[in-house]
């Protein structure tokens, strides 16, 4: 009765899609004492960063026994250190069943996702140019010297992506770091895909279908008014994508 009366009133909730960048803890083996010590050690390096963060446990590199994998202990230890384990990524069916028993969310693993990509048409491996690695700690940039054509996708999962050719309409380039396009950018460019909000996109001519930095994006329509078809950089300032001409940088 009261239900019908509220039909015109406000909805209880609405579902929206959200993409959040999160920290993954790549578990190699599990021993509760070792785990807690290592965790405390990490936290002591950056206490602010770890306070109340959501965390997912990645099982892709797990080499221990399934029987040692005690999610209740992992959750308990993390909670004692103000970290919230919310889900598990990857893992075999048994491991995922254990995770489910501990009320954790199941997130598709990197491996699973990669396999899907391979099935998709043309996950192209463009020939890469050798990259000089002076400092081994720095993530190497991926350098592409051929045009990235419609339907192709080029991904730099760790560092910057440098393209010395056009990125065509219908192509997609993604990088953990910055993206440089020394040619027209006509396709989609997504920088800082792991959440690096300091990443930028540089291009010689902005003609893009979409540009994104750390999940904040602008589509072609919204890019037309500022710097269109000219050399620009795109960066994030106060959660807003800002396009600025390169010659005044």
């Amino acid at each position, binding site marked *: 009765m009261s239900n019908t009366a509220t039909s015109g009133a406000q909805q209880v909730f609405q579902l929206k899609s959200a993409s959040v960048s999160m920290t993954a803890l790549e578990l190699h083996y599990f021993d509760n004492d070792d785990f807690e010590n290592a965790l405390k050690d990490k936290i002591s390096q950056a206490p602010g960063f770890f306070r109340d963060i959501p965390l997912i446990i990645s099982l892709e590199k797990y080499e221990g026994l399934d029987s040692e994998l005690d999610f209740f202990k992992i959750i308990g230890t993390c909670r004692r250190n103000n970290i919230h384990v919310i889900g598990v990524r990857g893992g075999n069916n048994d491991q995922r069943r254990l995770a489910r028993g501990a009320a954790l969310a199941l997130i598709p693993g990197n491996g699973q996702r990669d396999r899907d990509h391979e099935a998709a*048409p*043309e996950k*192209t*491996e*463009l*020939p890469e140019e050798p990259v000089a690695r002076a400092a081994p700690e720095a993530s190497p940039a991926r350098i592409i010297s*051929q*045009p*990235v*054509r*419609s*339907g*192709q996708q080029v991904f730099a999962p760790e560092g910057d992506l440098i393209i010395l*050719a*056009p990125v*065509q*309409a*219908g*192509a997609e380039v993604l990088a953990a770091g910055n993206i440089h396009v020394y040619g027209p950018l*006509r396709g989609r460019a997504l920088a800082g895909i792991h959440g690096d909000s300091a990443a930028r996109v540089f291009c010689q001519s902005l003609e893009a279908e979409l540009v994104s930095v750390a999940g904040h994006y602008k589509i072609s329509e919204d890019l037309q008014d500022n710097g269109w078809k000219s050399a620009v950089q795109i960066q994030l300032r106060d959660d807003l994508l800002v396009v600025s001409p390169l010659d005044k940088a």
Partner: protein
Amino acid sequence: MARIIVVTSGKGGVGKTTTSASISTGLAKRGYKTVVVDFDVGLRNLDLIMNCERRVVYDFVNVIQGDATLNQALIRDKRVNTLYILPTSQTREKEALTPEGVEKVIKELSETFDYVICDSPAGIEHGALMALYHADEAIITTNPEVSSVRDSDRILGILQSKSWRAESGLEPVKEHLLLTRYNPDRVERGEMLSVADVEEILAIPLLGVIPESQVVLNASNQGLPVILEEDSDAGQAYDDAVARLLGEEREQRFLTSQKKGFFSRIFKGG
């Protein structure tokens, strides 16, 4: 060893078969032993344009399935005696072109011919992939309009990733842009992309520009490769393209509208 050249586009109706017929005829006319292979299983057209449809006994699929030998299926052209046609099947599915079967036929052709021209079906599915897989060179047939250019870009990406050369890490497939149905008047009026626009977008070397012409349609209907219409703009443009394919330097023609005599020249060929 033969040079294997695929004529492809992604988009349909842009002039792949017309181009295959003219390029192969042009190469053969210069004395090269040339075969043109129709990969468009189920939509057999090449034999019509080459005017040999009444001489088809066995086809490409018969050879793949071992029902006929290559020599039984090859048709010798009546006008140019170094030119052969391997027609396709009108009744089968594209999947009848198995990768192993295509490889076997292409290998066998490479042993005896100087040039193997593969006439690709439209699209980016199995038939098109089979046609481009063995290519050393590709003629990307493109009309001066946005969707055709986009599809050409797509097929260029596929050439770079799915061809045998790409998979084996060899020197990449050599790409040529052939702009067909080019109408300088419409370009001037802004109704068509210009040569410069298309070159700028696709960023591959220009092999030639074939002007839009009634002669092309008339020649197709008569079963005559348009390159044999030697007085026509389109025929001469194809001849230039063949010369450039062989490494000759030739200036681009037919890029601007010829004020006087342009239409009379076009219609004379019909």
